[in-house]
Every structure is written in C-alpha cells, then in structure tokens.
C-alpha cells in the first residue's frame, strides 16, 4: 500500500512563541531584580548603545543656584552665590532619588564653625527620617556612619574612625564622595577612603544634608550618579 504524501505539520503556534518571549523577558526582569541590578540603568545603557544621547550615570546634579529641588525639613538653609549654606542649629534638607545604589560627589564642602555636618543617604520619609548619614564630625573627633530610625539618631554609630592628629576641620575645603552600594557604604574625603561599613536595614531613599548645634557649613557642585 503506497504511503500518502506527507503533509507539512502545523508550525509553532503564535501563542507558544508569544509565551516563550514573555517568559524570557520576565526571567530577565526578575533576575535583574534579584541581583540588585537597576533595570533603569540597563535599559539606559542599551539605549545609548543604539545611538541614544545623554548620560545614564547621572541621577541628579545641582550647582545650588536655587533650592527648588530641595525640601527643607528643619533649620536654616539658603543658596548664597550659588553655594548651599546651612546652620546654625539643627538643620535637615533633602531631595528624593530614584535609585537604590548611587555615588554622591560633593566637590566642595566647608565647615566654618561648629561640631560638624552630615550627608544623608537612603532616607525614607523626610519628616520622621529612616535612613543613614555620614558625618564629618570634629565634635566626635572623626568620621562616622550613623543610622536613623523614626527620626531618632541611633546613639552608637554604625562605624567610626578617629581623624588623624592635627586634622584641619575648618580651614580647608573638602571634597566628599559617598558610595552606597547594596549593604556597603564607603566614604572618601579628598580622594582618600576614610570609612566603610555594612548595613542592610534600608535599601533605598533620597539624600540630604545636616547641620546641628552651632554648625555653619556650605556645600557646592553636587552630583549623584548610578553605581557603575
């Protein structure tokens, strides 16, 4: 008995192909989330590869010609000749950030008087703050990372290091860099690593500046960029 001519079998259904593509996309998105990689950064870099303009790295920058991007939660803050000035007394000023991990660069910081200033990061709720601060702190005699819970500063710092003997807290302008990546925070002052610590309580939030007691401090040329 002769065999009937073979007919082409039906092809892959569109439903199965669509499901396969959707699963690939879902695995990519959830996988990036598990590894902590920013989807925004990945998509931005892909866009740049295909000829898109702009910089993926910069999340926020401010030369402090005005304070429109900032929320003053306490104290006295002003833009003076394009420089952010704060103090005296307890002061807190914040700006939101749309990223979990970032590098904060403040080109110029200056402590004119008082016991120090702080740079907030991963701050949630600018009223009763939860998050962290790095503190340039002659009052303590060194540099510290602190945790904040419900608007209160936790008494024991996450990390503290004494400054070198004879450290000039007031005369010099300082360049400050904070890297906030996963559960690890690193502070550089004038390009030198001074302190690093780990904490996993808070995973995201904005940044800001702090003054306290008789502190008068100024800050200029702020850039916040994605962690490379």
């Amino acid at each position, binding site marked *: 008995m002769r065999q009937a001519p073979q007919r*082409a079998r039906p092809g892959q259904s569109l439903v199965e192909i669509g499901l396969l593509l959707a699963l690939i996309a879902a695995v990519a998105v959830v996988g990036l989330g598990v590894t902590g990689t920013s989807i925004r950064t990945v998509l931005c870099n892909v866009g740049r590869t295909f000829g898109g303009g702009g910089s993926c790295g910069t999340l926020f920058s401010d030369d402090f010609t005005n304070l429109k991007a900032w929320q003053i939660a306490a104290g006295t803050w002003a833009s003076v000749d394009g420089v952010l000035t704060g103090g005296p007394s307890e002061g807190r000023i914040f700006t939101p950030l749309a990223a979990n991990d970032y590098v904060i660069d403040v080109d110029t910081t200056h402590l004119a008087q008082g016991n120090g200033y702080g740079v907030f990061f991963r701050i949630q709720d600018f009223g009763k703050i939860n998050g962290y601060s790095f503190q340039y702190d002659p009052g303590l005699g060194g540099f510290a990372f602190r945790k904040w819970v419900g608007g*209160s500063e*936790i008494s024991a710092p996450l990390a503290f290091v004494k400054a070198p003997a004879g450290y000039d807290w007031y005369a010099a302008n300082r360049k400050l860099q904070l890297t906030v990546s996963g559960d690890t925070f690193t502070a550089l002052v004038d390009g030198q690593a001074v302190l690093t610590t780990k904490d996993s309580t808070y995973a995201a939030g904005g940044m800001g500046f702090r003054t306290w007691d008789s502190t008068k401090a100024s800050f200029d040329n702020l850039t916040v960029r994605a962690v490379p």
Partner: protein
Amino acid sequence: MPFERSPSLKDFAQGMPPKLPDSAWKQRWIRLAIVVLSLVLGGLILLNVTRSRVIERISGSGTVTGLVLDARGQPAVAEILIERTALVTQSDPSGRFTLPGVPVGQQLLVVAHTGVGVEYPIVAVAGASVDVGTMRVETTAVPVP
C-alpha cells in the same frame, strides 16, 4: 480524510515525493524551553519572596512588653519602635510599654528619647507576649570607644 483530499495517481507521477523535514523537533525544543524558563522564573520569584518580609507577615505576630528607665534608674517616657515597620508606641509614666503586632522572628527594637535612639535585638513569638526586660534611654549620641 475527506475523499476530495485523498491523494491521486498524479501525485506519484514523478515517484515518491521527497520526505518533508520533521518540524516536530523545533516544537519540542520550544516547549522544553517554555517549561525550563517557567521553572527558572518560579525559582527567582520564590527567592525574591523569601528575601522580602512577606514570609514574616504570613508567619504571624506577637506582643512585646518591657520597662524603660533613664540613666538614673527612673522610669522614662520614650518612644518604642520596631525597625522596618510602622509599629510605634510610647512607654507610660511608669516606664512600661506594650507593643502588639510585632512580626514573628528576630527584630530590632529602638527606644528613642529626645532624638536619640538605642537598638535592642529582640525575638517576637507568634501569638505570645514576650517581656524584653529593662531598657535604658540614651540622651547623647556617643562614639564606639
């Protein structure tokens, strides 16, 4: 098969037609890929859930009680918080507090007074009241010696 679609002798005028390539193997691979990717996605979602606080919420909650004293050993009115939750209460004039709804497991309790907080690790037990004992307020932020 309908009669109209049955093969005729003309179909075999040139001999047996060439064997068509078997496209079933492509279908099998794509379906295998769908199954594998579904398992991978399920695993990643499970990993995300275990790393979040969803498991804690599902496991239930307990009550935490304690006593807050100041540096002189006197009862203190202070704010009591559980980190990474919205749970907050205040100790009464006798220094005592009760905080219900604390997620089960290891938590960090903070005793806050005049803008300074002290962390205490605690363990909450589902459906039970745990007395965490006496805690002291701090009034200054001091460095680790």
